[in-house]
């Protein structure tokens, strides 16, 4: 068993290292981090704008006015989150190369806008907000990568204007970016022109059709979700941060799916996707952290006899409520523990399938596009993610029960072992 585990770890460590330390993926992850406060701001106001029973309380007309007044909060942030992600990626890409990161941000944004259609129904001078949200997400990500790389490449090639000594440094800096940005944006303009002669007409349309649609279609399905969830669990089993590693690849897909739901929710249409960012964060991870260990802690409080487990319960519960569960993962321990590998891998997969099923038959509403911070305690997070619906909390309760039942026999075996050890030690 041990040599097998060592071998597996020798495979996983380089993967973790590559995925986490890859320049593009790390800029992508940090780019989303930059956008996150705005996404959450928008989410808060979606929640407030859709408070339950308010329409009955103040009347439909007043409720419509109320919603209109709050609308811009999410329309200016959550709806067009792609824009903020692009700025973040461009900034972080150039920052990594120790260039002037603010120019990375603006050149990424500029390049993206050049590629974005600026006509809606033959009305010129407008940019469809949908292009800045879900639909433009992948184009934005690729554009930000390429634009920032090109910019920094031109800077490194010293294609800048040298100012004579005596020119204030701020002035000199503004000129130093001139040629690299001009060259970079010119390339993107050329790309736009070339694409206008293809059947796709716009680059946006091309990326959407060739890359984004197939990837999100794949990511929205149950099989891919199960694979992702399993991979996260496997990484954690070896004590490696599964989300950090896997999410850097899947976040763009999960956020794009989430944004489609948000657009539909705002338009009052049927929500298209079951799997979204909050589906993963709220119903599979957000019940005490990876592996939904809040249910494990509850099981410990109910059945554990050994001092070691009871101590762990006390140690883990405070942070566990807020979905931080390293004490459980390293303390139970879960890592490299052959006894827990079955419940550790099985429970999240069963939960994913059950949640998927419950949402597909409409027993529980789908997520509305609200992004709930991952530290939000369970029950509340489920309620918020499903559009202020109590059934979201009920789903989390069901999931906790599933985890509880799957874990219980294994916990008992472990607890007995600890208990025996403690007795013989005395």
């Amino acid at each position, binding site marked *: 068993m041990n040599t097998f585990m060592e071998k597996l770890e020798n495979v996983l460590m380089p993967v973790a290292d590559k995925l986490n330390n890859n320049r593009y993926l790390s800029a992508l992850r940090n780019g989303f981090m930059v956008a996150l406060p705005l996404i959450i701001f928008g989410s808060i106001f979606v929640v407030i704008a859709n408070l339950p029973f308010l329409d009955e309380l103040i009347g439909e007309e007043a409720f419509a006015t109320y919603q209109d007044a709050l609308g811009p909060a999410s329309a200016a942030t959550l709806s067009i989150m792609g824009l903020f992600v692009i700025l973040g990626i461009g900034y972080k890409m150039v920052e990594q190369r120790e260039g002037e990161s603010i120019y990375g941000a603006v050149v990424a944004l500029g390049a993206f806008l050049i590629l974005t259609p600026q006509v809606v129904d033959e009305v010129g001078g407008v940019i469809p907000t949908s292009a800045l949200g879900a639909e433009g997400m992948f184009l934005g990500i690729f554009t930000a990568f390429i634009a920032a790389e090109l910019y920094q490449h031109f800077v490194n090639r010293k294609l800048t204007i040298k100012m004579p000594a005596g020119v204030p440094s701020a002035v000199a800096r503004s000129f130093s970016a001139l040629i690299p940005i001009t060259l970079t944006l010119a390339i993107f303009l050329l790309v736009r022109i070339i694409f206008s002669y293809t059947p796709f007409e716009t680059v946006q349309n091309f990326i959407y059709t060739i890359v984004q649609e197939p990837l999100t279609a794949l990511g929205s399905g149950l099989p891919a979700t199960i694979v992702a969830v399993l991979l996260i669990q496997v990484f954690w089993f070896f004590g490696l941060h599964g989300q*950090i590693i896997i999410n850097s690849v899947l976040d763009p897909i999960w956020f794009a799916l989430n944004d489609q739901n948000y657009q539909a929710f705002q338009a009052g249409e049927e929500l298209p996707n079951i799997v979204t960012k909050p589906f993963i964060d709220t119903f599979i991870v957000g019940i005490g952290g990876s592996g939904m260990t809040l249910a494990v802690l509850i099981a410990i409080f109910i059945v554990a006899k050994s001092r070691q487990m009871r101590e762990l319960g006390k140690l883990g519960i405070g942070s566990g409520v807020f979905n*931080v569960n390293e004490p459980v993962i390293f303390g139970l321990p879960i890592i490299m523990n052959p006894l827990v590998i079955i419940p550790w891998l099985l429970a999240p997969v069963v939960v994913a399938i059950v949640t998927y099923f419950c949402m597909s038959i409409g027993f529980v509403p789908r997520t509305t596009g609200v992004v709930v911070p991952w530290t939000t305690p369970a029950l509340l997070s489920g309620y918020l993610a499903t559009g202020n619906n109590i059934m979201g909390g009920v789903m989390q309760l069901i999931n906790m029960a599933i985890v509880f039942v799957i874990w219980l026999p294994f916990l008992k075996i472990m607890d007995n072992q600890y208990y025996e050890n403690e007795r013989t030690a005395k």
Partner: protein
Amino acid sequence: MKRILLACSAGMSTSLLVSKMEEEAKERGIDTKIWAVAQDKATEEMKEADVLLLGPQMRFMKKKLEGPAQEQGIPLDVIDPVSYGRINGKAVLDKALELIGD
């Protein structure tokens, strides 16, 4: 003053350790500054630190951070998983002080 920096994915789970380590340092009467940051802030924050310790779940960051740590001339290590799981402030403080030396 001993300046001890901890880093993990979001600086959340290491911050559990921070309070335990501070308690321990206070008991021993050692003047310390102990704080936890998210991984992407580690390179920047280590300029203010005498030692950098990583959460074991982020041990794959060690390779990437080794260069900057060497430049700063500060030691860098991964916290042992058992001490991490038990939020053992004493053991981790010992480790940090040992790495700082003197």
